[in-house]
């Protein structure tokens, strides 16, 4: 298993199921039956750039990239 150094966290009261994050980062973000994100794993160094993009693309600013620990 690849080691992760960061993780994504959703600000649930702000998330509006726009789904842009899942388009940018399908490796780590799936969507549930109502379109809300399901984070399926930690952010590996290879996916770090895409994770940053997923955070920036959210129109509600409801996704954050946080350091582990």
């Amino acid at each position, binding site marked *: 298993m690849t080691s992760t150094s960061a993780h994504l*966290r*959703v*600000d*649930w*009261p*702000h*998330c*509006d*199921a726009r789904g842009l994050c899942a388009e940018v980062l399908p490796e780590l973000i799936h969507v*549930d*039956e*109502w*379109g*809300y994100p*399901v984070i399926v794993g930690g952010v590996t160094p290879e996916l770090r750039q895409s994770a940053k993009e997923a955070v920036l693309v959210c129109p509600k600013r409801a996704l*954050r990239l946080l350091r582990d620990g």
Partner: protein
Amino acid sequence: MTILASSSPSMIQPAMSIQPAMSIQPAASIQVYPGPLVLRGVATTPDLANHLAQWGAQPKLDLTTLLELCSSAVVKGRGGAGFPFARKLSTVADHRRRGQRPVVVVNAAEGEPISAKDSALLLTSPHLVLDGAALSAHALGAREVIIVTASDRPWVADAVAAAIGERESARADRSLRWSHRPTAGRFVAGASQAVLEHLAGRAALPVTAWVPEAVRGVRGRPTLLSNAETFAQVAALARIGAEEYRALGTATSPGTTLLTVARLDEPSGSSHEPAVHEVGYGTPLVDLLPWDAQDGPVLLGGFHGTWASPVQIAGLAVDRDAFAERSLALGAGVLAPAGRACPVALTARITAYLADQSARRCGPCLNGLPALAESMAALARGVDTRARIRELGGVVVRRGACAHPDGSARLVSSLLDHLPDAVGDHLSRSCTCTGGAR
């Protein structure tokens, strides 16, 4: 003794009005039994003079002594999550900054509607709770203590206001500023983040906590927010010392705990009032259940809790570790026996109530809980929706600003995991509620 919380007898309500699901209200009348420690003063009136006669003056401890005392007595939060109190206290202490004294918040909102233990405590021994808050405030150098009560328990608000008034006119703890803030009487308003939102002047609804309130809480200050019973336990512990406190409980769970026994069925001729007991950890759980409800399932921990079968309960002691070994949790200390009522029908009603109580802010909860309630209602009608219930339970967990979806998922999963026979009987129409014999 019975504590009639409301002033007018016409306001007396049953412990829980189960139909329709949306009208579940906290009980206005509670049976409170004297206990070995924090409820030892139940028989006297709850005024300051009686409190001082019973407990003597409140000791003042420095931070190191209080931390040492709370960690050696393994004091854990009594609001449900069971977070170690000493760790919370030291986090607040570590984040004190120049010109920013910490704030102490006593959470007496008791959002779990069938719980009555914090109400019982504040109606019978309010000064013990305030002592614990004052003691913590002194140790931390805090000057401000805020007590939060819920609007659907106005009798608790009255008791708190009276106790604060007494302390102010007696000029007790003059370095402290007491205030009392009633919040909304709804399930999620008692969650710590919702309490902090309320204190910030916003709607009392949960928000995402990026930083714990112990680091940044009320007005950005480090905030010691704990359940009312936790503060009473700390005050009692400071009076009697760790050794005597430990002797009341077990090696891993020292001291005592408050428990609410609230039956979910409607026995004829028997009381609807919830009963509040204080017992030492290690007490056999079955001793606390009404005799006619001991052979049925029990919902442990309240509406966010877990169902337990009679087999799981047999020989079980009131002890956090013993509970965890059987995949059970004591939560905020509610024991709710189903008695003769069908646990499937009860769970369907409770899930409908929980879905209604969602703050409707977080998508997975807003959509998932009504779907879960619908599937539970179908199960109660005899449709086998077990797979869908499991799927929805998995979808909502850890996907909200507060633990409301997690608690609701825990409730329905425990029905399927711990009471599979009851669910099977219900589906094959051989349980009492569908007309069959039990």
